[in-house]
């Protein structure tokens, strides 16, 4: 990449983007005006509402038998805190009506006492009051609270009198323990804590807003305006082109985030001054203590801006027009916004695990920094993971931007599921849009239907889940008149290919073990959980387990993943993207961070074999071997211990790991060589 070219491209992109009204509005107007405005308006209405509640005169009605003494507590000036308007001698029927018409807020009655009990036991009788209110009416609810506290003080006074009558120290008996709550947090810490819950969310919203428009503009917008081909006529490499675009989007994202921070900082300091002058907050915030937090925060925002810019651009790169890009970016925005609520969840803390979750980590980090919790190891982890995600997404972006389909405006194949079946052409490949729908339906079905079935019994759950996994893609493929043989790769494999598959699955399993060990050491604790689940399956005996855990999933999951999903990817992308994409979806399907890497690795190997052999059977065999091994391990751990001690070893040493890794690689390479043997013969 040549710096001069990138510089002039960057300059061009910046001019182009900054001269676009939409970007400028999103980047400047929104953060500078809208957010502070929203915050102020929000604060003002909140204080207005709360003062209304405080200063309101609540209308209280009493039934006839309520004593004057109690009513006296509600008279004007009796309490400094609340003010009441009193109606006396109101009948219950009338009160109900008045309550409903909101003429009164609360109605207090004295309950009839059980006279017989009084006579037989000669005991003092409690005064029982009932407070009627309508929880559906706000003022009535607040009024009831106030009335309750007045009644409590009435009750307190009464007990005091009674105690004194008995010659006891009323004050001591009523309050034998004195409590005082003291907030020892420094003023800036509590301020930081408060801001820490809001700022991450606001920041992410503004970053998204800031990057969204330039991301669309430099990718889909450029294609829509037809300037992309002009760029291609120039002596620029694709890397230079995409890198300069990316720099532009990242610059604007960061700039917009910083603008947001500044304006939010301004608003916060304004509100702080108000708070201090009103006297609700302790004075003496030490602003110097915020400086390191701000510096680290800016670094994190930089890394995060890179990540956000790259993924928004990745999404937009597939779109040909503004409108299309907007459609693609909305779900992404929703996901990111949802994740950014993390900072508002008090139970979610930043640790080694959450530090790896994109978006969530940055929210938690900012929250922690503002609360002055420093853990440099974890900050480093957040920065590193964001940087890595950023780099990965930039690399991916560079990859997809290289494809001529993207550059010369081939759109994603349409969704045919909503068309009438008779209008569909026969033998079409699976479209990406259809894949998204099928996966969404699959997800819902597996969670709800499969989940409901598994409540009844574990076996039922497995069977129904697997049947759903199998039938939904098959139905979708049938409905869209896909070529079944091609989509699901129904082709008899050669014996050589099956042998290769066996080698490769063993290799993949060995590598998977190493990976599981590595991931398990990062996410400690989850590995045991995974093992605990499997115990449930063991009830039915080995044969049934093999059938349910190995045979059924091998067929059903392969039909979905290596059949339907991979066909959709292959029809649109190249080999590598198809394999990685399918493998990632396969990994995600297992819904566990710990399992993700291992299953994705296995998935990738399955995909490779299916791609090379064009037959799904080797993958079914591989899947079966993998799952069956797990079964054997569950039922007959002693067999594994005897013949393959390395596998069973509870404490795997580094040496063993290296051995397993080497064995795995050897197996994979051998498998690949066996696979390729035939190809060379054909070429000759």
């Amino acid at each position: 990449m040549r710096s001069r070219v990138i510089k002039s491209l960057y300059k061009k992109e910046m001019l182009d983007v900054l001269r676009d009204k939409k970007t400028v509005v999103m980047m400047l107007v929104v953060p500078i005006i809208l957010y502070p405005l929203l915050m102020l308006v929000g604060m003002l209405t909140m204080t207005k509402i709360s003062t209304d509640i405080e200063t309101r005169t609540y209308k209280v009605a009493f039934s006839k038998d309520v004593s004057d003494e109690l009513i006296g507590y509600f008279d004007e000036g009796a309490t400094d805190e609340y003010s009441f308007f009193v109606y006396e001698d109101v009948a219950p029927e009338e009160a109900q009506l008045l309550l409903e018409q909101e003429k009164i807020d609360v109605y207090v009655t004295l309950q009839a006492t059980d006279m017989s009990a009084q006579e037989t036991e000669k005991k003092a009788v409690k005064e029982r009051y009932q407070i009627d209110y309508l929880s559906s009416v706000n003022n009535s609810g607040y009024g009831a609270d106030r009335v309750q506290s007045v009644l409590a003080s009435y009750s307190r006074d009464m007990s005091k009198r009674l105690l004194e009558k008995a010659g006891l120290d009323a004050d001591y008996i009523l309050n034998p323990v004195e409590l005082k709550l003291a907030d020892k947090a420094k003023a800036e810490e509590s301020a930081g804590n408060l801001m820490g819950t809001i700022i991450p969310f606001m920041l992410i919203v503004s970053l998204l807003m800031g990057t969204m428009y330039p991301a669309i503009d430099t990718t889909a917008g450029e294609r829509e305006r037809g300037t992309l081909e002009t760029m291609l006529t120039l002596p620029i490499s694709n890397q230079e082109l995409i890198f300069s675009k990316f720099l532009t989007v990242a610059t604007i994202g960061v700039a917009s985030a910083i603008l947001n921070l500044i304006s939010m900082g301004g608003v916060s300091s304004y509100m702080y001054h108000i708070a201090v002058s009103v006297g609700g907050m302790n004075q003496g915030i030490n602003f110097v203590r915020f400086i390191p937090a701000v510096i680290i925060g800016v670094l994190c925002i930089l890394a995060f801006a890179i990540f956000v810019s790259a993924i928004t651009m990745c999404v937009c790169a597939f779109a040909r027009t503004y409108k299309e890009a907007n459609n693609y970016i909305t779900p992404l925005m929703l996901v990111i916004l949802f994740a950014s609520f993390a900072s508002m969840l008090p139970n979610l803390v930043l640790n080694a695990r959450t530090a790896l979750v994109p978006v969530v980590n940055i929210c938690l980090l900012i929250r922690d920094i503002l609360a002055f919790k420093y853990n440099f190891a974890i900050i480093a982890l957040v920065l590193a993971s964001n940087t890595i995600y950023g780099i990965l997404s930039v690399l991916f972006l560079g990859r997809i931007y290289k494809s001529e389909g993207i550059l010369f405006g081939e759109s994603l194949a349409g969704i045919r599921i909503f068309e009438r079946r008779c209008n569909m052409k026969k033998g079409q490949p699976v479209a990406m849009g259809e894949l998204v729908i099928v996966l969404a339906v699959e997800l819902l079905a597996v969670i709800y239907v499969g989940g409901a079935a598994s409540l009844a019994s574990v076996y039922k759950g497995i069977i129904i889940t697997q049947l759903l996994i199998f039938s939904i893609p098959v139905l979708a493929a049938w409905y869209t008149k896909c070529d079944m043989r091609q989509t699901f790769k129904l082709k008899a494999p050669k014996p050589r290919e099956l042998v290769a598959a066996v080698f490769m699955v063993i290799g993949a399993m060995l590598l998977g073990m190493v990976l599981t060990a590595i991931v398990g050491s990062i996410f400690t604790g989850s590995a045991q959980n995974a093992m605990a689940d499997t115990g449930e399956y063991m009830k039915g005996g080995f044969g049934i387990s093999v059938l349910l855990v190995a045979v059924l999933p091998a067929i059903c999951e392969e039909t979905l993943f290596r059949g339907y999903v991979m066909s959709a990817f292959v029809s649109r992308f190249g080999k590598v993207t198809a394999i990685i994409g399918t493998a990632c979806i396969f990994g995600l399907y297992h819904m566990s961070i710990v399992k993700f890497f291992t299953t994705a690795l296995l998935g990738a190997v399955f995909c490779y074999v299916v791609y090379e052999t064009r037959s799904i059977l080797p993958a079914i065999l591989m899947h079966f071997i993998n799952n069956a091994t797990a079964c054997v391990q569950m039922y007959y751990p002693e067999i594994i211990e005897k013949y393959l001690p390395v596998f069973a070893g509870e404490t795997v040493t580094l040496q063993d790991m290296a051995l397993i890794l080497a064995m795995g690689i050897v197996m994979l390479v051998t498998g690949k060589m066996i696979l390729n043997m035939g190809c060379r013969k054909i070429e000759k």
Partner: protein
Amino acid sequence: MLQATNVVKTFEKNEKHGRRISFNAVDGVSLTINQGEIVGILGPNGAGKTTLLRMLGLLMKPTSGEVLIGEGGKSAGLELDFKKKIGYLSNNTKLYGRLSVRELLNMVGDIHEMSKSEIAERIEELTKVLDMGEFIDNRIEKLSTGQTQRASIARCLIHNPEIYIFDEPTLGLDIMSSSAIIEFMKQEREKGKAVIYSTHYMEEAEYLCDRIIMLFDGKVIAEGSIDGLRKDTGKERLRDIFTAYAYDRQVSE
């Protein structure tokens, strides 16, 4: 100057009955363009003209075959240095509406790694030649169609290329603008530049081209000077000549 040997470009498309099939948009085309000549590419829609020109302009990589540029005859691939010798213009090469013509030309010059003074001189020169003085500092989105076309030509001239590749440069233009482009191509031929361009206007090709390449279904069905083609088919008008070749082709298949 510019040479293509057995260039093939394969695309995938959905066919009537069946699976996604691959087809060759350009199917084994070989051609040579020499200094000081204008070569016209004729063919119906979907014949592969644009794809061929995109490969010659190094915008696309051929699936197989080679594009050679310059005297050395080295394989070009998508190497950037070769792009500097080419000026490529098509209906799809739009300009950045939010930049002024001068800013655009500066950017293009920068990307061609010309020196600042070189760029300034060249802009000065082009402004005179293409009569862009009154709008050179205006935003491109504000220009008229004719002005935009002139700015586009300036864009592909700024680095003083040796080879011009034009994809239907006169499509949809009025008589004044299209004759300006035709005159421009003639002038460049006088300067010893090579021009290859595609068009649907047979008269224009007859008037302008030294040599005609007829493309049909991704293959070259005829090539030669207009006189040569006339002799070969016994037809007078280019239109009829093309139909004759296309008919022969279909019969022989």
